[in-house]
């Protein structure tokens, strides 16, 4: 049960990553690898500020701000300098690796002492429930884990609502149109380049926010923690779409979150059954490959069978 709660919490924390990827991958149709750098960037900024004694909420927001900046750079490379989107992401991600080491001063910043959102949640739980363990549907679980999960859920719900609201404002609809049909929205007076930059900034801001929360949950920030994160996010978005479809904006946002949580749970189960943790990234990559290719392949297989000429 502890394992389940932990996987659920990480799934929720990483669902912010999935939402960020939803924006770059589904709204703007770019696989934005900046994510691998910006999730670490958010974690690094947040961790260093917390160690220096900053308020955890402030540190978390600063991490979000770092992601906004990273995404803005990627957006400018794409929109103003007309670089290939993939290459823009690779450049910024590579540059961020050094930036992250500079921010942290070393390759790993532990958060053993400072006040984090996790320790805050812990205290909240102790004050509210008054005992170290509670009975949840027949299982005894630690209050700490449960309250942390609740806090993560709260943050994700707030972010989802904010995102849903934003994408239905004048500004947000214009941003979606910039990804959907740039030619059309330009003819309606929108500076498509500027909106693309804003969109990538928002995307990476969410990713960095996810990184900041992840650092606080796991108790450290690490220079390597971002590797393969873009693929994690893609996997979550794809699973989410198969769960809820992408008919409407609300469903797509809900799907990204549900996909992230479900994916994390599947991974936890696989690890429990003895999957070598070293194989995790390979399995994830293969999964995304299969999820992208199989539907088309199945369709192609199905067609000749339907159109077999009568004998």
């Amino acid at each position, binding site marked *: 049960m502890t394992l389940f709660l932990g996987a659920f919490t990480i799934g929720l924390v990483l669902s912010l990553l999935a939402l960020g990827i939803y924006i770059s991958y589904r709204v703007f149709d770019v696989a934005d690898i900046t994510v691998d750098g910006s999730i670490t960037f958010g974690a690094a900024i947040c961790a260093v500020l917390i160690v220096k004694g900053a308020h955890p909420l402030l540190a978390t927001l600063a991490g979000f701000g770092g992601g906004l900046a990273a995404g803005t750079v990627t957006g400018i490379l794409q929109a103003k300098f007309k670089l290939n989107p993939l290459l823009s992401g690779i450049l910024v991600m590579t540059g961020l690796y050094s930036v992250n080491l500079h921010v942290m001063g070393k390759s790993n910043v532990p958060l053993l002492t400072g006040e984090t959102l996790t320790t805050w949640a812990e205290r909240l739980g102790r004050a509210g429930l008054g005992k170290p363990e509670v009975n949840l549907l027949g299982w005894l679980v630690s209050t700490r884990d449960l309250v942390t999960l609740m806090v993560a859920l709260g943050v994700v719900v707030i972010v989802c609502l904010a995102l849903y609201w934003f994408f239905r404002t*004048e500004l947000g609809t214009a941003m*979606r149109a910039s990804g*959907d*049909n740039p030619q*059309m929205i*330009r003819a*309606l007076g*929108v500076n498509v380049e500027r909106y693309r930059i804003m969109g990538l900034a928002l995307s990476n801001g969410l990713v960095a926010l996810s990184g900041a929360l992840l650092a606080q949950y796991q108790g450290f920030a690490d220079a390597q923690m971002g590797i393969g994160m873009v693929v994690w996010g893609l996997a979550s978005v794809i699973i989410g779409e198969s769960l809820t479809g992408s008919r409407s904006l609300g469903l797509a946002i809900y799907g990204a979150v549900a996909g992230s949580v479900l994916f994390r749970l599947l991974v936890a189960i696989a690890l429990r059954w003895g999957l070598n943790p070293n194989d995790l990234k390979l399995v994830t990559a293969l999964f995304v490959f299969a999820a992208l290719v199989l539907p088309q392949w199945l369709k192609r297989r199905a067609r000749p069978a339907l159109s077999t000429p009568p004998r």
Partner: protein
Amino acid sequence: MLHVSNLSKTFNAGTVNEVRALRGVNLDLPEGAFLVILGGNGSGKSTLLSAVAGNFRLDEGEVHLAGQNVTHWAEHRRARLIGRVFQNPFMGTAPTMSIAENLSLAARRGQRRHLGWALPRKLMDELRNRVSQLRMGLENRLGNAIGSLSGGQRQALTLLMATWLKPALLLLDEHTAALDPKSADLVLRVTEDVITRHRLTTLMVTHSMQQAANLGDRIIIMHKGTVAYRFAGADKQRLGVDDLLARFEGLRRRELLDETAAALLKETYL
């Protein structure tokens, strides 16, 4: 209203693919004028429209619109003054967004976009009202993704979007060419209706001699990046499909003559 002088544009200059798309085109349209632009493939008629819309930088020439020199304005800035309908029905609308959302984007053409709700109730009422005037039954499907509609329906909506805020200039780029005849008729009816109702200054590129003869109060025939013929007023009204075809035939013969004459000269002197 629209004043275009000496427009010139060469694509891929200095390469084997060099195309001199516009060679010094001049136009002068008073307010409320409806100009039909005819021409064969590669005559520069669509390029002329794109030049006015601001899709590319001109080599030479100036564009003045509604009393302003817009020559150096980017396309999205000119959009404040221009409504546009493309040839491809898929180009004028955002397919994954709903009908209402697409229209709401057009309702703020060229204006600042804020963090206000994109679809306030007042706008929704107006949307329903104006969409119902298309008489396509789309007013009950405002929440549907626009990608699920037919080409004709999408083109009619694009026209509604382009004219939602009265544009200083309406650009129609063969906007019925990709539609089936029935849809084309319908879109054309809506076009005429909206242009006469709002007295819109219009540039319409077309392939169809029939449309050219029936619509507009003036006409130009383009050939090789220049204006070969101009008709306005009573001359335009007298012009029928046969006359237009005759002009085209004349242009074609002149071109053939040029080539054969060149070949003859080559043979004789080289």
